[in-house]
């Protein structure tokens, strides 16, 4: 008589209640799981609070401002961005930035390449690439004036950008782009 190799004897290994009904309850495991669940819910809560506060971008903690000492240029930006998510960088110009009805400023390549500048409003009268970035000239009537750059970073990472008025010290800041 040949023995079927795949046939094993039936063994009742499931723990029983009152030695009668096989349930397979493992309360020790379940109690550990409940503790784990409690921990996970705490983490969920922390994540939501951090998100509402802007720690993951698009909130109060994410917004930042940088300016030149004479406040001729003030840059409103988000220090924490999200990949593939639109945001706006605003350049505000004081009276000292306006010369002959124009504002001339230079943005580094990181704004275009890493932070994904989509468009600039209003449209500059000239855009000149060079010196590791693009120089823009925008006609302005009087201060206060603002230019907005629409950003949409393509990839996560930490990027450093520079913005500089003509003949002025640059503003250098870092932006963290989250996935």
């Amino acid at each position, binding site marked *: 008589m040949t023995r079927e190799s795949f046939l094993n004897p039936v063994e009742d290994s499931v723990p029983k*209640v*009152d030695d009668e*009904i096989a*349930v397979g*309850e493992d309360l020790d495991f*379940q109690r550990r799981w409940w503790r784990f669940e409690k921990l996970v*819910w705490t983490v969920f809560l922390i994540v939501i609070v951090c998100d509402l506060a802007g720690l993951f971008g698009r909130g109060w903690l994410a917004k930042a401002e940088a300016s030149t000492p004479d406040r001729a240029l003030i840059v409103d930006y988000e220090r924490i961005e999200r990949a*593939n998510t639109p945001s706006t960088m605003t350049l505000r110009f004081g009276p000292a930035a306006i010369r002959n009805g124009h504002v001339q400023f230079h943005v580094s390549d990181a704004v275009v390449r890493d932070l994904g500048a989509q468009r600039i409003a209003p449209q500059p009268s000239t855009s000149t690439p060079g010196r590791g970035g693009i120089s823009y000239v925008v006609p302005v009537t009087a201060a206060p004036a603002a230019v907005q750059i629409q950003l949409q970073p393509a990839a996560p990472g930490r990027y450093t950008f520079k913005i500089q008025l003509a003949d002025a010290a640059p503003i250098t800041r870092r932006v963290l782009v989250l996935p």
Partner: protein
Amino acid sequence: MLVERIVEQRLGKQLTPFEFVLIFYLGGLTLTGMVGIEASMVNGVCQILTLALCHRTLSMLRFRSDRVMKVLDGVPLILMEARGWRTDTLRRMMVQDDDVMNVAREQGIRDLSGIRIAVLETFGQIAVIPKPQHPPRDA
């Protein structure tokens, strides 16, 4: 998957309308993050294959390890036994005694005294075993 395991206290037959919506909502939100702006067929096919591979891997781990099986599926939990209700389990799993009685009635058990044991199974169903003197009525 972890979120679903944590959030969904009751699955399968015990789905409430809200939990039913929640599952589809979580699926939709996950899809947004996974697909993003890329709607190519290559992306779709690769994601399907990735999910299939993940499912296969988890199934294999579940088959080979009791611990993994418990983590993925949970364990059956006794809600009611001869000594009475397991109130701690009921509270933590958010199951009410009425839920148990609903299932008992489906089996022809008239009241709680006719229940030998009630178990919350891993996929969310409540299994009720009647006392020997209260055999279920013929349907």
